[in-house]
């Protein structure tokens, strides 16, 4: 199957998932305590005002009609209106999205730049001190709460040493601590998987074939070991995007980084549920899109996959 055909199939597969996600969000919002109409109207409003808003929002109609309305609005880009800001949710999201993207990209870049070389090195020298140190550090990294380590970093670098700012996003220097903190979330697992998959690739039989052909060591390493090791590594990177997005929420809160993550937490604090659910749904949609992208990349680097169309995910 060609790559294009695979992409099409993968997108088609994602549609029911998207539908399901919207359904879940819709249900969750409905379970919420409190009357959305009253929330919007405010505590002082009169009963008829609340009733008017309720009609405006269409809360009187049957539930499935509401759901269809909901879906069509989302697909049109209308994620609702924020109670607090009184502006469209999508507008608030777009305004702060670049910050989150920047943070996520920076954290991913740092994690990849450190974890993959470390993992490869540690695989090539399995019993060295490097290898041992790497496994210890990655284990500790995977067990540390990021909000805590973020605060510790703030204390060390902003309060004690005073070399980095503690919050906000005014200058490039402000990006350093949040990005490093977030990258720690990814580094632990990424190092371990890189190491494991390079070790496995090193032991594969086609490496012996490559050696028997008389190829140079370097070529064998790059072409037959690393290239094959990339497959599980890319897989794990794709899976980690979820943790990246979730971790961004926490990191932005700790460092008061003005992205959609901190916006989400704030909106929950202020009970601005339209905004909160809009952000969550938006992130989920982005996540679904990224997953499709990762699967396509995966199909590109592993030709065997193009023949298989699995259900749900890889095992």
């Amino acid at each position, binding site marked *: 199957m060609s790559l294009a055909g695979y992409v099409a199939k993968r997108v088609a597969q994602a549609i029911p998932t998207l539908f399901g996600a919207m359904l879940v969000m819709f249900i969750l919002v409905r379970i919420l305590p409190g009357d959305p109409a009253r929330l919007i109207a405010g505590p002082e409003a009169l009963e008829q005002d609340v009733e008017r808003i309720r009609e405006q929002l269409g809360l009187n109609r049957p539930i499935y009609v509401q759901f269809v309305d909901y879906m069509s609005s989302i697909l049109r880009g209308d994620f609702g209106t924020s109670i607090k800001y009184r502006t469209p949710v999508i507008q608030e999201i777009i305004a702060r999205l670049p910050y989150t993207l920047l943070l996520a990209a920076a954290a991913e870049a740092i994690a990849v730049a450190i974890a993959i070389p470390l993992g490869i090195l540690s695989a090539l020298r399995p019993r060295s001190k490097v290898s041992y140190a790497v496994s210890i550090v990655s284990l500790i990294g995977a067990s540390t709460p990021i909000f805590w380590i973020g605060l510790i970093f703030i204390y060390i670098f902003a309060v004690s040493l005073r070399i980095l700012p503690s919050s906000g996003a005014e200058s490039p220097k402000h990006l350093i601590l949040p990005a490093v903190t977030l990258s720690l979330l990814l580094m632990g697992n990424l190092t371990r998987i890189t190491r494991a998959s390079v070790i496995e690739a090193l032991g594969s039989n*086609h490496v*012996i*074939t490559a050696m*028997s052909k*008389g*190829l140079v060591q370097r070529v064998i390493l790059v072409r037959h070991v690393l290239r094959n090791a990339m497959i599980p590594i890319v897989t794990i990177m794709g899976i980690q995007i979820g943790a990246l997005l979730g971790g961004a929420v926490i990191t932005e809160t700790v460092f008061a980084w003005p992205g959609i993550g901190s916006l989400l937490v704030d909106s929950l604090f202020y009970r601005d549920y339209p905004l909160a659910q809009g952000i969550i749904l938006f992130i989920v949609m982005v996540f679904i899109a990224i997953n499709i992208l990762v699967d396509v990349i995966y199909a590109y680097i592993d030709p065997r996959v193009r023949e298989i169309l699995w259900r749900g995910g890889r095992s």
Partner: protein
Amino acid sequence: MEKILEISDLRIYYYLPQGIIKAVDGVSFDIYKGEIFGIAGESGSGKSTLALAISGLLRPPAKVVSGRILFMGRDLLSLDSEELRKIRGKEISMIFQDPSTYLNPVYTTGLQVAEVFEAHRGGSARKYLSMVVKLFRMVKIADPERRVNAYPHQMSGGMKQRVLISMAIAERPKLIVADEPTSALDVTIQAEIVELLNEIRRETGSSIIFITHDLALLLEIADRIMIMYAGKVAEIGRAEEIAKDPLHPYTKALLASLRYERKKRLQSIPGSIPSLISPPPGCRFHPRCQYAMDICSKRDPDSININGRIVSCFLYGDHHGGDFKR
């Protein structure tokens, strides 16, 4: 006849935490130009280790402890890695057992074969693809122009094995070491592959070392056969002679197990391969040997040459007071 390979008293041990495994323990034989030399033995007999050693592909914990491997007069064990690399693929090549795992799934088969040319002639593999097409034709892969761009998973087992063979003959090596090349294939495909190898030997004059546990197969295709047991040589001789007149008890037992249809009973050899970490004292086969004598449990027999046949057994030669048993 020209000698391509001379192995003298080769010992290869595996150094493992649980002990030292003497996988190859004093093996000597020669290979001549253009012959098909079969090596037969059960798993654990050391034949695969031998194969890897000849190509210089042994990795730790395996280590060549002593002995010599002379290829065209050069001692392979004294060469450095770059010199060995130049020989591998060009003068000595290998065919492996399981084409599925010995081919890289992420590259096309054509590119992987072209890599042989790249390794020894330089440049990028891509430019040798047309030569690969010719090779594919030679190994009877149908529709070679298309197949060159196919991935391994798009090919059948037999076809993949032909790909491996084409890889092995690409640079017209003097010696091809085939380690169980047909064991993973259907019987019908086996026959085709074996015939293909025969043809290659005829057309290119390469010598082939054919390693397998299937003695029957060797009796059909090989010129000479070496029977290995537990890291040692039991017997070496011409295929017809061994078939007619096996000398070593192990050989006799192997042949008997093949001829079961005549006896109407499957004759297996009682017992199993000894532990290679602490092999029994004396001849390694004696616990399972029906001809075992007292001396067999005490000393290891030397190899004796009887009219061109090599055999290591106290039944023959004059270890035993000059008695020349048949």
